[in-house]
């Protein structure tokens, strides 16, 4: 399985992401944002976390115009699997490949800590290794993680099973760190081939570093 990982100026999670997928036995390739096409054998495209273009103007706002993004949009529209983590999620919403937007955290602070998430919908390639209601421990590290979508959009997400993950405590009770609508931590598109989440599963690959719950999350992509 081939995982291509996007790198913009300011991306800083591409090597963690590479480590995570190589640990799972994948071939990986880092793709610089000036590339005008994706490696032709790409099975999964990851838009990695970080601070593309210094988060200038808005997180992800400038990255969406990088040359590679045209190829990303075409890849997504033809059914290719895309995963956006943290800044990658912000880039995908800015590019309108995912619904909604990420606002400044309600408490205005940058939050960097482990947080629990509850699996809301495993009827997709990303979370199929987990059960609905499962609680995982995954690090979050963001300033603009406050997911917003209007009421109409929220209804659509719910109706189509597009809400993937919610922030909770360790018992699975809602605990919202950043003010996101309905405590949403991750969503997918209607076609269920583009996924975005603020937490970092690629940073939860080693129990000795706090959690290995990311393995079950990323593994879903390997068998599809």
């Amino acid at each position, binding site marked *: 399985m081939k995982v291509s990982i996007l790198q913009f100026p300011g991306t800083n999670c591409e090597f963690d992401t590479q480590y995570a997928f190589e640990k799972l036995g994948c071939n990986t390739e880092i793709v610089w944002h000036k590339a005008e096409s994706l490696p032709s054998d790409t099975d999964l495209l990851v838009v990695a976390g970080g601070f593309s273009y210094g988060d200038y103007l808005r997180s992800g*706002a400038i990255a969406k115009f990088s040359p590679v993004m045209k190829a990303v949009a075409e890849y997504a529209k033809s059914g290719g699997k895309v995963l956006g983590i943290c800044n990658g999620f912000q880039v995908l919403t800015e590019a309108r490949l995912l619904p909604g*937007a990420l*606002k*400044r*955290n309600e*408490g*205005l602070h940058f939050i960097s800590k482990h947080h629990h998430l509850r699996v809301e919908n495993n009827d997709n390639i990303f979370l199929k290794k987990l059960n609905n209601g499962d609680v995982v421990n995954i690090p979050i590290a963001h300033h603009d993680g406050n997911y917003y*979508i209007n009421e109409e959009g929220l209804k659509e997400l719910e109706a189509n099973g597009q809400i993937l993950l919610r922030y909770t405590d360790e018992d699975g009770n809602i605990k919202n760190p950043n003010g996101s609508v309905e405590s949403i931590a991750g969503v997918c598109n209607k076609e269920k081939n583009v996924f975005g989440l603020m937490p970092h599963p690629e940073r939860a690959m080693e129990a000795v570093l706090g959690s290995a719950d990311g393995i079950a999350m990323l593994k879903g992509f390997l068998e599809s």
Partner: protein
Amino acid sequence: MKAIVNVFLKAGVLDSQGKAVHHALDSLHFDGVKDVRVGKQIVLQLDENDKEKAMADVTKMCEELLANTVIEDYNIELV
């Protein structure tokens, strides 16, 4: 010509920064403040001299880049 673009969160989208500034003003005893909204201002120096054309261009810039219309409104002033 100069274009001044103001970008604010839409009414109904919680403006946490505005709220924090409002709290700070309260604690400084500026009691008469009813609401605070924090936004950003983008000033563009344009070659264009035709106002209508400039307005159309800047509107396109706002729609494509300067504002995220999922959460933000914008207004444009030409001077």
